[in-house]
């Protein structure tokens, strides 16, 4: 094949150009950290990485939801703990007040303490979250669920679920209906009844309420147990989310990010090839110089 000097120069210049382009490509990858920066670089890898990013965004969203639910349940558990303490204290006072040695005056004093406990219980049961929603109101979360005077519950039994992933939900609330007769006894009205009986120097009613108080203690304990179980599920989901986030990041990295060692090796090879082609071009130009 006849090869002209023009062709030799073209070939060496093209080789230099190709090698320069290779160096630029690898440098770009190293500086950006990305092997695939747009779909046409590697359509399958790009789409796989984007899908993972979508999963990550949804994972972030559900993580936030889990966090909100978890905080709500923690706050609810605190309320239930307070109520449990109040009911236990009320039972002690009821036992004391039911004793025949008590006078009307001393029962009246105990009744005053029970009234205070009732008020504290109502206040605790009507606790709101930072957003102003009543924790124990069910879906009537913008309406005070327990009557301040009677302690009667006016919320509903609805619970609220939060997304733990794209297809599952877990309960993240506890309804105040669990503290009513549907689940045992009407806890707060019981305290009110007790305080009223004590103030009225009515030991018979007080004695009759002791059994209900025992039920109330167990009832609250049971509700706390349920709440704790829900918290445990959300904690477990939270841990799964953290693991998933790591897994997603790894998948994204595998698809579109560069392997630094491999890229550095490619850069060294491309640089070496460029140096050689530049030397060849220089040599060719000297060789073909008609002025020689």
């Amino acid at each position, binding site marked *: 094949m006849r090869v002209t000097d023009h062709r030799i120069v073209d070939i060496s210049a093209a080789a230099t150009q190709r090698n320069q382009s290779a160096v630029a490509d690898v440098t770009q990858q190293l500086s950006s950290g990305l092997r695939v920066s747009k779909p046409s670089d590697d359509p399958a890898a790009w789409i796989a990485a984007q899908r993972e990013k979508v999963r990550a965004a949804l994972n972030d969203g559900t993580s936030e939801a889990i966090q909100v639910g978890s905080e709500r349940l923690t706050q609810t558990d605190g309320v239930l703990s307070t109520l449990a303490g109040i009911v236990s204290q009320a039972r002690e006072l009821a036992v004391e007040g039911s004793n025949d040695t008590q006078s009307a005056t001393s029962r009246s004093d105990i009744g005053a303490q029970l009234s205070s406990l009732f008020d504290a219980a109502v206040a605790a049961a009507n606790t709101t979250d930072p957003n*102003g929603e009543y924790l124990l109101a069910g879906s009537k979360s913008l309406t005070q669920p327990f009557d301040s005077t009677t302690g009667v519950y006016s919320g509903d039994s609805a619970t609220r679920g939060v997304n733990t992933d794209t297809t599952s939900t877990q309960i993240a609330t506890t309804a105040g209906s669990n503290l009513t007769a549907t689940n045992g006894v009407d806890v707060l009205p019981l305290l009110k009844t007790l305080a009223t009986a004590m103030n009225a120097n009515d030991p018979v009613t007080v004695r009759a309420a002791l059994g209900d108080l025992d039920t109330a203690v167990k009832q609250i304990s049971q509700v706390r147990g349920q709440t704790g179980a829900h918290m445990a599920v959300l904690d477990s989901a939270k841990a799964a989310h953290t693991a998933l986030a790591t897994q997603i990041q790894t998948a994204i990295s595998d698809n579109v990010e560069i392997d630094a060692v491999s890229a550095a090796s490619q850069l060294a090879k491309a640089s070496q090839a460029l140096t050689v082609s530049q030397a060849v071009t220089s040599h060719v130009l000297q060789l*073909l110089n008609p002025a020689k």
Partner: protein
Amino acid sequence: MSDLMSLLSLGSAALSAANNGVAVATNNAANANTVGYSRQTVSFESNLLGGVTTGATGRDASNLLQTRIRASTGSLANSSQTQASISDLEDTLTSGTGLDSQLSTLFSKISQASASPTDSSLRDGVVAATRDLVLGINNRAAQIASARKDADARVYDNVPQASQLAQQLADANAIVAKSGDPAAMDHREQIAKQLTSLVGGTARIDPDGNMRFVLDGGSVLVDGLHAAKMQTAPDPTTGYLTAQVVDGGVTRDVSSQLGGSIGADITFRDTTAKKTADQLDQLAYDTATAFNTQHAANAALDGTTGNLMFVAPTAVSGAAAALTIDPTLDSNSNKLALASAGGLPGDNTGGLALFALATTKNAVGGTKTLTDAALAVVGDLGSTGAVAKSDMDRDQLVSDHLDGLRDSLSGVDTQEELTNLARFQNASSAVTKFVSTINDMLTNLIDKL
């Protein structure tokens, strides 16, 4: 005496032949860097009665190779322009936050708001994410429309240029027919290459020596000394330009027959970018429909149902550009419906149902999720771009290979021409010496008479 005179004539002819050789070698060297120049040769023929003459100046070129080079030029121009157009659009569509990301952010915000459905800041977050998604889809619709208009503008610019080149090719046919000049043939070849680069097609040398240029669909653009005219005309249906060939009072739409860069622009405008625009319209329509359907069934914070998230699109076509957030929701996030119908403010089951749209196949006739459909808008374009890049690389390799073959046959090698020059120069010196000797002999003879 007469023999010596004939020897002088013989020497004169030989001198002339050597000078012709010097002229051709010099011309070749002078055109070493002229694009499309084919090396010229001079042939020496001995006379029957002695002496030498030079034949017509030859041209080292192959019609078959030139035909392959023209075809390769058309393919390369087509794939390069296709790759460039797709790459530009791809860069534009992937800059900033992607639609898939905006959609997943919306779902993420819905999930958060569902966990605390009366929280006004979280509800505002959902409305803001809806607004961002609308803006993202609107912007991308505008970017695709702009890319299609740019391609249309290039068609507008290049079709008249192709028409001019067709006329120049016919004119070059006339010059070649008249002069047979090798340089004129090279010039005609260059025009044909430029024309092929613009419109694709095939050029061939007819038996009469004229170059005939035919578009891929069979429309004749140049026939001998006659060239048809090319022009653009707006398509009343699409509003874009069509390419036409006007010949003998007959006008034909040749848009689908064109290769080269004009063909690439038309294909990009009417097929590739249109598909992307259609996918985006479908995504906008499906997104608005899916969200609106669920949202209307839910109850807002005030207990009302039938509220929309987006202004309901009237048709798929144009849905992306027209997509708008529902103005009532836009101005009042309490209209975000996160409860089920009849549900109270603390109910979030409607919000959970909205979030479930993330994994439901509501797009493209129930075959894809909304986020997958959003990914496909750019992903499919990227796949087409990857194929276009591969085509371009292949065409470039073929073109480089053919350039090498052409250079091997027709290229000028300056070292070779310098050698030829020295050879002809030496021959010329020898003949000069020969003529001088004859002249001396004649002078001696005349002096002795």
